């Protein structure tokens, strides 16, 4: 190495200073993110393009791998699907009739403009959170595309989660199966509200909790739960999932059980962000 005299910072000093810095940062981050937001933004310019690139390669590779490994599976599946198709065609006929009825009813309720009327932006999932404890993920659209904190994220027709953090080029989404997630839901038939809570302990079953539903509400297995009108962050009428195993609580005032989310969180590559905040409505 070089022979120049260098300023030596003792290790203990360094450790103490950095520890103090960390503690201060922890303290500050409980109150505000003003301090870290610019750094976060700057970091996103470096990290996000790299992440996008790697993710693209990964998607391509899994595509290739799938292509070769699944031909046999596909043949079997095809036969099964043909059978199913016939069944579904029959069912579809019935549903079409229902749909017509639904449309007329919706118009009556003036619900029509509520659900399809939102402007949405499609985003690609480019990374998950670093740890195994929380179900958050990163998408490749940020404040440059008009995304703000608290915007709702959907996939297909089901609710995925909510934007918790935005940089210029990326956003962090907390999914509804996350530990910290709480959504107010309501029964699509009777508008009774309940609370939908994510739980890490249920990660293997694929369910989340459905709680605080009034005892006298009559709920059927597989009943649709949508986001409710009283939530201040989630827009009304987005499908969350289907009720399962609802039973009365020990307090005999409420009932609770599980909810099967409408979205497949394991295989989610693209999501839609609704560019509308509930509080602005």
């Amino acid at each position, binding site marked *: 190495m070089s022979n120049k005299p260098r300023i030596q910072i003792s290790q203990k000093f360094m450790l103490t200073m950095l520890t103090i810095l960390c503690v201060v940062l922890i303290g500050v981050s409980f109150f505000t993110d003003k301090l870290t937001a610019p750094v976060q933004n700057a970091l996103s310019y470096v990290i996000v393009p790299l992440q996008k690139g790697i993710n693209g390669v990964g998607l391509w590779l899994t595509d290739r791998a799938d292509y070769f490994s699944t031909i046999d599976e596909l043949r079997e599946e095809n036969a099964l699907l043909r059978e199913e198709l016939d069944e579904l065609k029959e069912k579809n006929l019935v549903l079409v009739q229902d749909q017509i009825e639904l449309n007329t009813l919706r118009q009556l309720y003036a619900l029509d403009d509520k659900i399809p009327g939102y402007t949405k932006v499609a985003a690609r999932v480019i990374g998950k959170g670093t740890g195994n404890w929380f179900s958050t993920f990163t998408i490749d659209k940020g404040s440059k595309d008009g995304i703000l904190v608290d915007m709702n994220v959907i996939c297909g027709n089901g609710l995925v989660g909510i934007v918790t953090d935005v940089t210029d080029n990326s956003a*962090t989404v907390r999914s509804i199966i996350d530990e910290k997630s709480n959504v107010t839901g309501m029964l699509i038939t009777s508008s009774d509200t309940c609370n939908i809570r994510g739980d890490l*302990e249920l990660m293997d079953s694929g369910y989340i909790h459905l709680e605080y539903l009034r005892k006298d509400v009559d709920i059927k297995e597989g009943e649709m739960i949508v986001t409710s009108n009283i939530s201040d962050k989630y827009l009304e009428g987005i499908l969350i999932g289907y009720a399962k195993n609802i039973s009365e609580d020990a307090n005999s005032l409420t009932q609770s059980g599980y909810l099967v989310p409408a979205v497949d969180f394991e295989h989610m590559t693209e999501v839609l962000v609704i560019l509308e905040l509930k509080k602005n409505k």
Partner: protein
Amino acid sequence: MKKFLFCFFSIIITYIMQVSVFTYFEIAGVRPNLLLMITCIIGFTMGSRYGLLTGFFAGLLVDLMAGSTVGFTALVYMYAGNVNGFFYKDYVKEEILLPMGLVAASTFIYEFMYYIFYFLLQNKLRLSYYLVRIILPEVIYTVVITLIVYVFIYFIIRKVEQSKKRRTITSA
């Protein structure tokens, strides 16, 4: 200077691996903790000063990108790097058990603290579940990855030392 650059690029590369590549290699929904692993490896192959700094910046990166409590991961990773650096003198490159043991212990302690601060304090008391379902699989997975990465790093270190030797011989 070279060492600092090595640390810097290790952090960036492992972070990208952690958030994108390894989402395809999840085993039962669990991913290894690569950043803590690289912190430990740098700790005992380069000394506690490098370990400390790598840990601090790796943790800070995690915290900033996750957007939650900034500083917690940085603090724990920093101490992990520092403590691992104490084994710098004892460590023999050919010995594989020490790196594995250190990484396993560090990951376990980090995850356990994470459980305490983010779950236990929120009245999630089923320690056995979290231990068996999240912490232990993660520790085991991380140790397995350590084996692979360590062999790779071992070759780099050997190459560097060989070239150094050659240089000293030619200069003498």
